[in-house]
């Protein structure tokens, strides 16, 4: 398994040398959504707290670093940490409201959605960040301002983000923190009885998750150069973040990556295909069908199923 991972990494490192610019773009989306999925995976997959409002953290991170860069000239390399911290602060607030008052299941989902919607409305109605017109970054190609002439730089940055998040998740999984999160997902009351401070660990998961997601916001802002409240805070983005780890295997280290390799190209292909025929948005129908199939046939996601196949083949 180890050599397989190393080989895959080697291929990904060399790939830009042979890919055309469009294919590089597809990979950037794969990596970026795998990164966001991995960040969500900590609180949604491992701890089992279904946040359906993670777009809010992307938006906060994106607006923060974009405004700091445009208004104050602060490099987004620092701004991404500021955006991450601000997201973590808001993650703390949402987590506190949800976990202190024992909101479980649907109620937590609704809380996180409501939170993201509030953020969207605030952005829509704040003229200082462009309001409904959106916020735009002028492209200068200055790497210090997180702007690159060559698409391949974004490729490596996105790959790096994905690998860092995956490393963090793998480290969490090997420690008590991860063992506790998984146990909390299985049965919270039993955890409490066994000495697990469930509130503290759920909060920690939320904070790490929202921080990483906020960091991702900077990449979003400085890859697309335009921020629209409906796009960065909207429910569709939250769905994009959640669906990859679920399809790939929530609560597994490889799930979000596998899910993104399955879904991101699919989304891209159907966007082009359906978009040309005037069927823009039809990829959401494909998502829906795929999600139904996953829930029915692979309720734990593709990665655990793949592992079982692998184990059977090895025997």
């Amino acid at each position: 398994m180890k050599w397989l991972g190393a080989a895959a990494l080697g291929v990904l490192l060399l790939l830009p040398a042979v890919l055309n610019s469009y294919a590089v773009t597809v990979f950037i989306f794969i990596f970026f959504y795998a990164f966001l999925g991995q960040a969500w995976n900590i609180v949604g997959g491992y701890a089992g707290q279904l946040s359906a409002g993670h777009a809010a953290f992307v938006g906060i991170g994106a607006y923060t670093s974009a405004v700091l860069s445009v208004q104050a000239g602060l490099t987004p390399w620092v701004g991404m940490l500021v955006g991450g911290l601000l997201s973590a602060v808001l993650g703390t607030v949402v987590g506190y409201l949800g976990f202190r008052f024992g909101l479980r299941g649907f109620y937590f989902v609704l809380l996180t959605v409501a939170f993201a919607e509030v953020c969207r409305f605030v952005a829509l109605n704040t003229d200082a960040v462009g309001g409904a017109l959106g916020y735009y970054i002028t492209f200068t190609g200055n790497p210090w301002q997180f702007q690159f002439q060559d698409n391949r730089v974004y490729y490596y940055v996105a790959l790096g983000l994905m690998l860092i998040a995956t490393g963090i998740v793998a480290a969490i999984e090997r420690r008590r923190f991860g063992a506790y999160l998984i146990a909390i997902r299985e049965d919270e009351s039993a955890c409490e009885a066994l000495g697990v401070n469930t509130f503290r660990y759920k909060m920690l998961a939320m904070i790490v998750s929202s921080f990483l997601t906020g960091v991702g916001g900077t990449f979003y802002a400085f890859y697309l150069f335009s921020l629209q409240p409906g796009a960065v805070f909207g429910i569709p983005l939250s769905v994009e973040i959640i669906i990859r780890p679920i399809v790939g295997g929530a609560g597994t280290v490889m799930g979000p990556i596998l899910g993104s390799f399955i879904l991101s190209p699919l989304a891209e292909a159907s966007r082009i295909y359906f978009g040309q025929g005037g069927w823009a948005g039809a990829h959401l129908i494909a998502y829906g069908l795929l999600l139904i199939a996953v829930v029915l046939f692979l309720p734990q996601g593709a990665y655990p199923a793949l592992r079982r196949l692998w184990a059977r083949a090895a025997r």
Partner: protein
Amino acid sequence: MPPLLQVTGISKRFGGLHAVRDLSLEMARGEVLGLIGPNGAGKTTAFNLLSGFLTPDQGAVRFDGHSLAGLKPHAICGLGLVRTFQIVRPFPHLSVLDNVRVGALARRPLMAEAREMARAVIDRVGLGAKTDQAAAGLTLPERKRLELARALATEPTLLLLDEVMAGLNPTETAGIVGLIQRINESGVSILLIEHNMRAVMTLSHRIAVLNFGEKIVEGPPAAVANHPRVIEAYLGEEYVHPPAR
């Protein structure tokens, strides 16, 4: 030496129902106290009050020199008072080892150490052959042992066992009785809710009887078993004073 557990006049009301009324109990170190009573007598509510899953409306609980007022279950576990659940709550998708390891992590934050500890406890409760099996696939007696193992892995000084023998056949019950005795001999005090009279009589040093939320009798097993109020509570008044024919 002060008592290990000192419960003073705790009460709990659910709307109009007085589930536990002015209950006082004391336990010495190393003791096995049986808590019996008919269904609905308030035994499990009492456990929830002691372990922090419910807060008493009145009264106080002291354990090992600490007041438990306002403490959450995890903090109470940290002090060494751990409960099992009547309806067992295994982590279904986790292996037996991973289940028990969650308990072991309470005092051993390093995963490798906790794993070793968990293995030892699993062997002790006789689940060694099932170590790597998912908890969801265990039989009921095995789940009861798992519930016990997880609690034991937190290294408690007082173990609250809620009907760990319910649903077991006589052989399995005898096995658990022996296991609980060995746990007690290793220095763990035990508060036991149990409907199996033979088991509770064998294990307990003292027995307290609850009925309608109140403690009606407390004493050594033999005395409690023949006490008229106990017979009345379980079987009805006519068994205490047989009606004249």
